[in-house]
């Protein structure tokens, strides 16, 4: 069976709250933590990785599908919520891939309990203040502008138009606004970083980690990669030329190959 046809949603309970998880593929599970605009859909990289692995993508509470959980007020709350899900589903230790905001969530989970993960892939994660440049502000631009800024060149990026089904329907506008509102609840200030994270990540030395970054990332400056790498002693950084904030879309073949090799 082709992986895409296996994609379905499962609803779980985590404490009193609901969690909808997109599940697809077969084999050993991988936790996929999505970005600040939401779950962009099943892309080429999902298709390729899911041939050998089961991808579990929880849809964040308050992002439109999974109901809002009022008590989740910061990234650590969200990280703890997912950690409970992983524990209660007997998934630990699990491999994780986190994109942008999802990379930060993964990093917080790892900092709190390194044993929850085996291998960690962080794709242009926010969470650490870049020593040079600023993280692009999601809250002062329309979602579609932010989406467009997330790739180096949207016109030549083949899969760009498939992200969020094109992103222009009224339903998607609502979903973007849900995502932006919940991201504001989680990361308004300090904007998209936790000053203590570089210290806390020092406890992850046993987790093989792959950092993937585009050299021309206009959302999270690549300078942040150095801080991540310094804090995570077992991390390797892969910086891709001619690539923005979405290596998985802009350089999908290279991304797939590297991540497949890394996860094994």
């Amino acid at each position: 069976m082709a992986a895409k046809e296996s994609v379905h949603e499962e609803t779980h309970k985590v404490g009193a709250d609901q969690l909808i998880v997109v599940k697809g593929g077969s084999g050993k599970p991988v936790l996929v933590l999505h970005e600040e605009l939401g779950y962009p859909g099943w892309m080429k990289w999902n298709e390729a990785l899911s041939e050998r692995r089961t991808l579990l993508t929880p849809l964040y509470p308050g992002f439109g599908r999974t109901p809002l959980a009022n008590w989740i007020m910061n990234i650590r709350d969200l990280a703890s919520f997912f950690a409970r899900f992983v524990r209660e589903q007997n998934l630990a230790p699990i491999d994780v891939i986190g994109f942008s905001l999802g990379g930060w969530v993964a990093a917080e989970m790892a900092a709190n309990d390194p044993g929850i993960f085996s291998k960690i892939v962080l794709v242009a994660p926010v969470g650490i203040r870049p020593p040079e440049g600023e993280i692009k502000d999601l809250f002062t631009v329309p979602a579609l502008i932010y989406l467009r800024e997330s790739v180096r060149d949207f016109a030549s990026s083949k899969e760009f138009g498939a992200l969020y089904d094109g992103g222009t329907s009224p339903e998607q506008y609502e979903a973007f606004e849900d995502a932006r509102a919940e991201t504001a609840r989680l990361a308004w200030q300090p904007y998209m970083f936790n000053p203590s994270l570089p210290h806390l990540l020092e406890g992850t030395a046993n987790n093989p980690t792959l950092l993937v970054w585009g050299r021309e990332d206009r959302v999270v400056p690549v300078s942040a990669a150095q801080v991540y790498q310094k804090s995570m002693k077992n991390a390797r950084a892969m910086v891709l030329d001619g690539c923005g904030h979405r290596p998985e879309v802009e350089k999908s073949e290279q991304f797939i190959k590297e991540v497949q090799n890394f996860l094994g």
Partner: protein
Amino acid sequence: MHIMWFTERQYHYDPETEPERSALLENQILRNRSFFGLPNENFDAQQGSMLLNEYLDEKIYSEDLGFDGLMLNEHHGTPFCLGSVMDVEAAVLAKATKRAKIVLLGNPVPTVANALRLAEELAMIDLISKGRLVPGWVRGAGSEQLANNSNPAYNREYFEEGVDFILKAWTKPGPFRYEGKHFHFRFVNPWVLPLQKPHPPIWIPGLISPDTVVWCAKKRFPYVALATKLEPTVEMWNIYTEAAAREGYQAGPENFGYLQPVFVSDNQQRAEELGKRFLYGGAFAHFARPEWMFPPGYNSKEATRRLARLPLAANLPGKPIHEGGGNETDAELKELRDGVYARYEDSKRELQMIAGTPDYVIPRLRKVLEVLRPGIFSFWLDGPVGYKDRVKCLEMLSKHVMPAMRDIGKELGLVDPFQRAPGSVPLASGRKPESVAHPDGLASMPA
């Protein structure tokens, strides 16, 4: 009827004495499609100082002209309004005037990080003014959240909790500890408390948010609609009246206020020329770009759903906007400006701007009063109009328009919140409330 007047205290240059600077500033605003966010290198402190003093002088003088209330507001990061800390102006008026109410519509509670400090500021203004303060609260426009780094996703929660806290700080004997969801105070014991007991009367301004209207009705706070179109304003009155009935009272004129753009001069052509300047820079349509008006989580889910289904206009969020903006040719800019001022005819027809001689203005104001029946009424003067013309307008309002308004108010029974306490007329459970607005009048607008 309580009659007051208001101006945004716009940063401007007089187009008659400084036409070039006035046009240059307007072009900058038009290019930016927004007053908010205009780089502050465009601010000339000499001009700002002169204007702030003129605006205070006008307010002080207007007490002598017989206005009942002096209304102020607050905006941040914009030439639209110089009152970035309204309480400072209110403090000046508190000492410099003797009789008029000082009406603050309103303090943006969510953007003021310290609600206890706000309670203390307002208490001081009430004491200095010897009990003439009417505070009001707003959520603040979306752009204010950005300008003050106040999380828009919690805007309504900050607003409701902040207002409750301020009332508690004024009325609950201290010291006490306050631990809410968003506000935390270890030691609440403001020494300086308001003169008016149990606290100053509170009015709430708004731009037609049903959530706010219902909240006002529950709290028995008068709701002041800020120059909104008549038909949707009637709907809001009805929503308020129904919510009031559920609370067990009959709403009346004392529960409602209305802000009306007006300009009066001694000849019709001149009045319209000055009234048209209300649209300077695009006026409210260019208050701030949509992405700044609607920062994340600021709107309710319902409002977002409605917005998502509007036809995609050039500046709507969700669509890449403003491409090529800022580089318009002179001809394109002229077209943009002409489009802005072309809206004047609609404003005139819909009574969104009433500019003329007293004979022209009074019957139109009568129509507004007949339809909405507000107990609180505020004139709104704005746009880049020189000091002399503004003062002349105030004098004409005082001499020719206000006496007629008072007669109409009496005739229509428009009691204000000082004549009858809002929420004081009981309504038996299950009884249908009487409508306050009289929308029948909309069918026959003055020609």
